[in-house]
């Protein structure tokens, strides 16, 4: 038989279901015999019931639930793609046949497709186009809303593994702002986060996606050299996608503006002196 001091020292363990077997039997036997300890146990149980009654402490907002749900779907998609090479290696013969079967409809579609720029788009360009579409459909809400480039740059600090510096508006006196920043969010890409910034120009959406060039390399589509940079232009699902790498970062600019969507470049290069930067991107 345990004494009262021992019982009181182990009361939390008992009430938290951490006492098992003989220890628990012994404990309950004491409570049946000792009114003082029984009263104390009942009092403590009521105290804990009071604390536990506040559950749940907080409720996640519908926006957070949507955000997480989207991130999980994206994660599943990316992980599936990432795991494909391992599976292919393990069952090479079967996989080769399966891949041919899987690719057949795509190859037929590509043969019919008359837009050569859509061929060979990098996964980053495809992700950027998909992100743009999902955002304008309302499936990818912004996580921060601001028209201030400085606020958006600051928001990305400690959220992405690279530095994001969004240029300020370069407004000419007497002229209207050519575009407006709407806000930003994170998007999952290759087991990392990429920075997503949404703009609008003449009420048309423009998306800028940024990641480290360690994570994404540009390739495919039509190659255009301008100002010492190599741009890749792809038309993907009717969208104009420009991708390029510069100083450790890889960018994708998505819009449905005319020609190659080169006007979307003004979100960072509005200055008139930089128009010669944009000019080579126009179709010849």
């Amino acid at each position, binding site marked *: 038989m345990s004494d009262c*001091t021992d019982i*009181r*020292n182990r*009361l*939390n*363990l008992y009430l*938290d*279901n*951490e006492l098992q077997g003989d220890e628990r039997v012994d404990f309950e036997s004491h409570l049946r015999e000792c009114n003082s300890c029984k009263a*104390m146990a009942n*009092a*403590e149980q*009521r*105290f*804990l019931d*009071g*604390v*536990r*009654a*506040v*559950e*749940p*402490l*907080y*409720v*996640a*907002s519908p926006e*957070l*639930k949507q*955000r*997480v*749900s989207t*991130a*999980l*779907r994206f*994660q*599943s998609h990316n*992980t*599936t793609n990432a*795991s494909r090479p391992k599976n292919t290696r393990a069952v090479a013969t079967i996989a080769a046949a399966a891949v041919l079967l899987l690719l057949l409809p795509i190859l037929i579609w590509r043969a019919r497709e008359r837009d050569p720029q859509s061929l060979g788009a990098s996964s980053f360009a495809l992700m950027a186009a998909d992100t743009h579409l999902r955002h304008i459909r309302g499936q990818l809400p912004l996580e921060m809303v601001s028209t201030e480039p400085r606020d958006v740059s600051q928001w990305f600090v*400690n*959220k992405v593994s690279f530095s994001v510096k969004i240029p300020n508006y370069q407004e000419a006196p007497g002229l209207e702002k050519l575009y407006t920043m709407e806000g930003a969010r*994170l998007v*999952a890409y290759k*087991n990392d986060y990429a920075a997503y910034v949404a703009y609008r120009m003449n009420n048309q959406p423009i998306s800028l996606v940024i990641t480290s060039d360690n994570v994404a390399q540009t390739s495919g589509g039509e190659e255009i050299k301008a100002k010492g940079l190599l741009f890749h232009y792809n038309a993907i699902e009717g969208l104009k996608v420009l991708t390029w790498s510069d100083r450790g970062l890889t960018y994708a600019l998505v819009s449905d503006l005319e020609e190659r969507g080169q006007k979307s470049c003004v979100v960072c290069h509005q200055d008139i002196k930089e128009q010669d930067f944009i000019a080579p991107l126009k179709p010849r």
Partner: protein
Amino acid sequence: MPTPAFNEEALTHIDALFGYAMTLTRDRTEAEDLVQETYVRGARAANQLAAESNLKAWLFVVMRNAWLNQLRRQNNGPRFVGLEDEESFDPAFPSEESTNPQVVYLRKVERTQILLALESLPTQYREVVVLRDIEGLSYQQIASVLDCPAGTVMSRLARAREKLRTLLNAREGRTRLKAV
């Protein structure tokens, strides 16, 4: 690879994870970011989760590690409030004098009073109360989340509850004074 079943079950714990994230960060925006980070990390590591594992407890471990990593990146160090020497603490039950009026009080106390008292606890106390009394984790599961021995969980929990009682007593005293 995270399966749809994993995603579905994991999402049922989002309120609990958000509550724990609020406990750690005390900031809604940071907490929401931490919840998302937790799910993304959890989905990546889903294949490491043994079939018999408790998903909720495992997600708490993922969340705490993600939070600690964030703090390390910020070079701020964990924002824990220093506690007394936990290992030397004897988790004795509080004296009867301090308990009985408390019990009477707790029958009447409103949810907001308890929430305010919980808010007032130092983070290390608050998280152990949240994990045990709000989320129902066992001592061993809490030990895994906090990466400490189960004995430390026991002593810290006893201290945390004692502190909670003291805070509730103080609040009760103030309420009585106002009523007078």
